[in-house]
């Protein structure tokens, strides 16, 4: 089974070959490295950019304006914060020109904690991204979703922010990407660049196909009747594990992977919350002015009278950074036991 880095790579290959992607670029994205997380190894249109995030986003906007289809990588989302003005500009160019111009561009960037990345390799970007109008924002938590959402992003007419949870980069999927060899080593032999000299290496791409994953729909990962938990990215697997644990305690949790943060699938969330009357939103961005707070607000706006308990948010603590030492990271962003505790409490609240 492909891990997320391999899934993204196969999707980018497919997009180069069939969806008209013209440029996949960023710092260390081209050969020999193929990206600090190997997401861009062996591809045809990759190139290494100068160390200049503003230049990277500007280049992507220009390529898109001139009819190309760029995929720009910001090496870590921790380094995207000097480009917010350009991201806002990309998001308002169609609107400001009254519909004349569109920017079919994808910005992909690794996000979140979980690799002991310390203060500047642990940032989340979902709160900031969802505050920028004019973008579609996706964040897969499985290799198959990463593959499918990247294909969808490369077909999109508007700017797409593709957030990749660092912590899940090496996690293997449970579902096969159509066309990938079932056996791990086989896939690695085909598309992972060898150590040492790579000057003559070429990837052997498996014939991967289309999948039915679009920008928008959330996914009910586990059906449940008593509590709804909505998450995405690194915290998603934690929610699934927690739900399994709690089923043993007689608490039946419905788990929803949002997958697309904007525009998000309110219908699926609403239906679930109406059913359970209890909802916990989980993400790891800092919790003040957090996208989960938007979802809480939306919930109280539309479902207040159907709630059996207050809608809750479990997110990152509002601290200036995530420290390197394990106890610091564990205390700063949601861990499995935090999800368990939050769900238990939510389930226990009397209406």
């Amino acid at each position, binding site marked *: 089974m492909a891990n997320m880095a391999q899934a993204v790579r196969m999707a980018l290959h497919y997009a180069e070959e069939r969806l008209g992607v013209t440029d996949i670029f960023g710092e260390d994205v081209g050969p020999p490295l193929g990206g600090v997380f190997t997401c861009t190894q062996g591809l045809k249109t990759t190139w290494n950019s100068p160390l200049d995030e503003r230049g990277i986003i500007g280049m992507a906007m220009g*390529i898109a*304006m001139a009819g190309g289809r760029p995929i720009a990588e910001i090496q870590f989302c921790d380094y995207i914060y000097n480009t917010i*003005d350009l991201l806002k500009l990309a998001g308002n160019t169609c609107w400001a020109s009254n519909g004349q*111009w569109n920017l079919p561009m994808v910005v992909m960037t690794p996000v979140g904690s979980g690799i002991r990345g310390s203060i500047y390799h642990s940032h989340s970007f979902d709160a900031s991204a969802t505050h920028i109008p004019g973008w*579609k924002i996706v964040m897969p938590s499985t290799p198959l979703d990463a593959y499918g959402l990247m294909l969808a992003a490369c077909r999109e007419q508007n700017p797409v922010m593709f957030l990749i949870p660092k912590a899940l980069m090496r996690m293997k999927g449970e579902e096969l990407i159509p066309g990938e060899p079932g056996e791990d080593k086989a896939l690695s032999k085909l598309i992972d660049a060898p150590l040492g000299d790579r000057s003559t290496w070429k990837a052997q791409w498996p014939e991967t196909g289309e999948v039915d994953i679009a920008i928008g729909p959330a996914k009910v990962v586990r059906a449940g009747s008593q509590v709804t938990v909505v998450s995405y990215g690194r915290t998603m697997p934690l929610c699934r594990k927690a739900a399994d644990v709690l089923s043993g305690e007689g608490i039946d949790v419905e788990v929803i992977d949002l997958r697309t943060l904007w525009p998000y699938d309110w219908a699926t969330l609403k239906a679930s919350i109406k059913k359970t009357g209890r909802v916990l939103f989980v993400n790891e961005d800092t919790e003040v002015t957090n996208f989960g707070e938007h979802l809480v607000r939306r919930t109280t706006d*539309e479902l207040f009278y159907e709630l059996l308990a207050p809608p809750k948010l479990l997110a990152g603590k509002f601290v200036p950074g995530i420290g390197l030492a394990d106890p610091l990271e564990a205390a700063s962003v949601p861990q499995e036991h935090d999800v368990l505790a939050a769900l238990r409490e939510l389930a226990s609240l009397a209406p």
Partner: protein
Amino acid sequence: MARDAKKLQVVKPAKASGKKASAAKTKAEARADAKPQVKAPAAPAAPRPQPVSAFKPIITHSDELPLDRQLLLSMHDTMVKARCLEERLIAMYKSGHGYFWIGGPGEEAFNVPLGLLIKKGQGPAFDYLHFHYRQSATLLAMGEEPLGALRQMKNTATDPYSGGRNFAGHFSKREWNLCPVSSPIEVQYAMAPGTAHVQKRFGGDGITIVTGGDAGTAEGDFASCLVWSSRPGQELPVLIIVTNNRWGISTPYGQVQGVERLSDRGAAFGMRTKTIDGNDPISSYLELKEAFEYVRTERKPYLVEANVSRLYGHSSASGANLTKDEPDCIELFEEKLDAHGVLSRADAKKVHERYFDEMAELARQAREEPLPEGDSIWNHVFFGEGPADPLPRG
């Protein structure tokens, strides 16, 4: 470009000078005229370019002007047209028919030649334009109708550039590769390498042109443009222009920047650079022509700094009043045209009067047109999707 020049020559100068001879020109003759006889030496293709222009400045006081008579007349005509447009926009602002004015009166001698040299069209075969907010004269020289600018001033729904959403001077015209003028200073320099990158791969002779002011070069994006345009083996066909009026709103250039000649910023990047007199349309035309030809054929960047005037202050925020402290390129040009018997004072005056009336009439028209509806804010949030408020309203 030949197309535009031809248009200008056959139509406007005829009107301007009223001379039958030129009015009667055949298209073929006109096209021939469109190629100005350059009197100055062509630029040497120096292997390692110098920071200063290798192109000898034109001696404009020679008896014979180095450009074709029809071209001189058409440039003058468009310069006056642009000035009258800007002055009308200012008049609209002052009479409450617009909320904010910013524009390019004082830069016509540079902006008109620039427009004449642009290869106009859509897609990478044509020039991509990343302009700032002082370039109505460039648009007019490209053949744009002035009514759009007046509509944008009145923020009517008919404003062809932003539908009443953006400030005056914030043009956008996809059919001409004119990227939306952005209020944020200098970001266009970060985007310009992107369009040039596509053009480099596409081939042909389409190039990218980016313009901005002197103060804005303090932003990192100006440096980014130099870096990204000069990657070894990936040099980009981008004409990087700085119009230096020596002001950033109220701040004199010399007070905040220690760079003597802004074009020198390109030297370290091994790119060709020069500083030119943007108040002289003849020298501007010839200097720009050399730069355009270099970028079109060599597919490499060229940094041009043009010294220009700012005749009505920064914007309406600073009053938009005429200053006498800076040279007026139109006055200077008319002096020269008169001295060389190309255009008499009297005929020049007629051009001014004609465009004054024309702009006044167009402004009256724009003023009557409806504003956009409130509900239209939901249009074009996403390209190719219908208007939709993402959140239900209680």
